[in-house]
């Protein structure tokens, strides 16, 4: 098929506090990578290309057409790059759950930096650190000063640091969705309004979920997935298993549920929901089939870690953002 010749767009991919899965998801386009390369020049992608920060700094502002920023903002380097890329990019996309809502790294907001350091540099079973050495942003050595990015106390989402144009959720995002979005941009289709979530549906998971659902959502106790024998077809909630599907956008192709695991919420909240964890807590609590305070407590005690369960991917992006001390 002959393609209209269009100037290639400039594209960057960066990872902040991330696991790398998002970058892999970009690679997962497989043979479509050729289409991508045909349409775009990758001007920055630390995981794949040897382009230095200073090269980016040298670019004129707004030179990059599209930047996919994945990962949360955990340290000064993340923050610096987020700001830098914002400056250099026309469109900045928060790519993946971490950039979107904090993601799994965001769970660190249940702890302070000190607690994290203590765990990592002291109390882990395999650590020997009798001198209580901690990473320092600057360390003088005879050769000069060694620098390390500063590890922040909090994990932040991308939009808590810079202005974000679009959000492409998922842990990682579905590759097809990425391609769709990418194609929309390169073909110059009309883009959605700024701040939109792209590459996901407005409707929640349940809309796509193949499991049988009814209105009988009354729960006498909650189970973790391994505690019950899943019948493979009934709605998880009706079986007492907490599934964040109703408060999570569709678009992932119900991957977890197809694998008989309840949804954990990586695709983030549907429109108009500022805090999916709060909505889900509300819905889940309403399902408790008890009216007596003590009985209610008992049911709730079967939810091991509510904050971790309801905010697995969204703690930094939630209303309260982090634990306070």
């Amino acid at each position, binding site marked *: 098929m002959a393609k209209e010749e269009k100037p290639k767009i400039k594209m960057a991919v960066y990872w902040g506090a991330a696991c790398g899965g998002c970058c892999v998801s970009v690679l997962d386009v497989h043979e479509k990578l050729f289409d991508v390369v045909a349409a775009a020049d990758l001007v920055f992608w630390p995981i794949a290309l040897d382009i230095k920060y200073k090269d980016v700094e040298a670019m004129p502002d707004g030179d990059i057409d599209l930047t996919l920023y994945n990962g949360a903002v955990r340290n000064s380097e993340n923050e610096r790059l987020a700001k830098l890329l914002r400056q250099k990019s026309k469109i900045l996309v928060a790519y993946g759950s971490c950039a979107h809502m904090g993601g799994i790294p965001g769970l660190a907001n249940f702890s302070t930096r000190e607690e994290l350091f203590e765990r990592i540099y002291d109390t882990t079973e395999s650590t020997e650190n009798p001198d209580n050495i901690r990473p320092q942003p600057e360390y003088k050595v005879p050769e000069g000063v060694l620098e390390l990015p500063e590890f922040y106390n909090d994990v932040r989402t991308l939009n808590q640091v810079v202005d974000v144009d679009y959000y492409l959720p998922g842990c990682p995002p579905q590759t097809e969705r990425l391609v769709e979005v990418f194609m929309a941009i390169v073909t110059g289709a009309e883009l959605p309004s700024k701040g939109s979530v792209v590459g996901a549906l407005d409707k929640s998971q349940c809309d796509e979920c193949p499991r049988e659902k009814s209105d009988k959502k009354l729960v006498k106790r909650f189970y973790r997935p391994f505690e019950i024998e899943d019948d493979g077809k009934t709605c998880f909630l009706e079986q007492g298993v907490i599934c964040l599907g109703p408060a999570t956008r569709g678009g992932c192709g119900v991957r977890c549920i197809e694998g008989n695991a309840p949804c954990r919420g990586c695709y983030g909240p549907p429109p108009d929901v*500022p805090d999916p964890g709060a909505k889900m807590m509300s819905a889940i609590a309403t399902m408790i089939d008890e009216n007596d305070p003590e009985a209610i407590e008992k049911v709730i005690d079967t939810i091991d870690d509510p904050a971790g369960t309801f905010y697995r991917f969204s703690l930094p992006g939630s209303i309260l953002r982090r634990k306070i001390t």
Partner: protein
Amino acid sequence: MEEEKRIGVYVCWCGTNIAKMVDVVDVAKEIGKLPNVVIAKDYKYMCSDPGQELIIKDIKEHNLDRVVVSACSPRIHELTFRKALQNAGLNPYMFEMANIREQVSWVHTDRGEATRKAKSLVAAAVNRITWHESLDKRTVDINPATMIIGGGIAGISAALEIGNSGRKIFLIEKENKLGGHLAGVDLTFPYMYSADQILKPLIKQVTNNPNIEVFLNTQIDEVFGYVGNFETKITPGDGKEVELKFGNVIVASGLKPYDPGGIENYGYGKLPNVITSLEFEQMLKKGKIVTKEGAEPKNVAIIHCVGSRNKDYHEYCSRICCMTALKFSNQLRSALPDTNIFECYADIRSFGKGCEEFYAQTSRKDIMFLMFDQKNDLPRIRKAETMDECDMLIEFNELLSGEDIEVPADMVVLMVALEAQENARDIAHAVGVSMCGNEFYIERHPKLDPVATTTDGVYVVGGCQSPKDIPDSISQARAAAARILATINIGQVEVEVTTAVVNEDICCGCQTCVNVCPYTAISFDEEKGVSVVNEVLCKGCGTCGSTCPTGAIRSRHFTDKQILSQIEGLMSTSIELQEV
């Protein structure tokens, strides 16, 4: 982008009630600086006619589209001001009230603090009203016909009450004749009127009334629709299906007697001369009180509370048995002047008009009242020996004397409890009323709304709601008739405007909301895969809105946005002002 919003804010002095504790002038001045606020004024009495006039004038002059009044409790004057807005041509829901009297000036003592709080409340109201939207009152046309389920005395009374005003009635009876239990009764307590003479003319009136259509041998399967517009299909005895359309439903399906066979102590079914109160009533009607052997009984024992007031059977009191039993004693005394009559009771509950007096009279008629322990120690009836000169003996511990006694009896009348009809659950399901544990229908409010149900347009009257005597049943039947006549008279019924609404583009069909609704207003549309709120049934409590995990349900006039911005307004101002 967002359209411009033009808010007018009015701060009331309420004489000195507010002004004494709140610097109303300052409040108005500060609030006037907020975005979207076009004017902010203070006035002595906002609720007074000149106060309302002021608002109306400003709306027109300044082209206001939203109004905030900061004065007393909205419970007192919200309606007043909404009307004023309406008069000025604004939608009444473009109004918000900040309560700075009941919740500020009357309860606080520091003027500075009170003023600060007042500001934050008004700021919150201004924030909130930014998100208000016009809501239109909705009405539903009422079909003037009424369906009544049950042709007993309650159903008949309701039918006549409405039918006599010239409105259509469909009276559905499952048996082959009207009259219900009253048709089997000889005399009524406490004045011993003839039940026949009461009932027959009423039935005649029903059958002669051209507005009342009676369907005998008919059951109700399913009723569709909502208040004002119900419909159902019935198949009367002749087998031809009929479709009925009606605006209201009265359920008067009555009760059925308890089967005492389940109480071993009483030997009903085994001892031939142990009979139920209904069987005895038949004897009275026929004028022949005889044992199975054909002789007039020398000793008759009447046992109260059979199946009532006992955890093993029904815990509730059946309300009419005491009086019926006393009536039986009187009838027996008349029919068989020399017979020994024993009333075995637990408490005599002769509470109605003329009833205690009836009890007093009865007790003077040489009738032996014996008390037993209904909750723990029921009497036991056994066949007597030949030497006992009676058919049966009833053993129990008599509580008033403390003696263990044996009461001779040739006939034992069991005052059986009244319980829900067998098809009570089906009817409940068909018309959408709830049942309590005893399968009696639940009224909307046990005190202030004893005949309406949580389903608008559906009423429950008479025994099906709990056991009752004739006058109480009739009062209830007429109470339901009143409600229906009122709605028919208006022809329309207003439905709640501040209802919940589902955004079908968002709703994912998880159905979490469906059961949350106490009014069954939410149903699941299988085809679209979304929940649907029936706005006629919705009462606007908003519980579904806070339950919906997808944010698809919006509680009109109490939306997330409105409340969240209200919170924001409340807090931002308070903090700013605290720093001052």
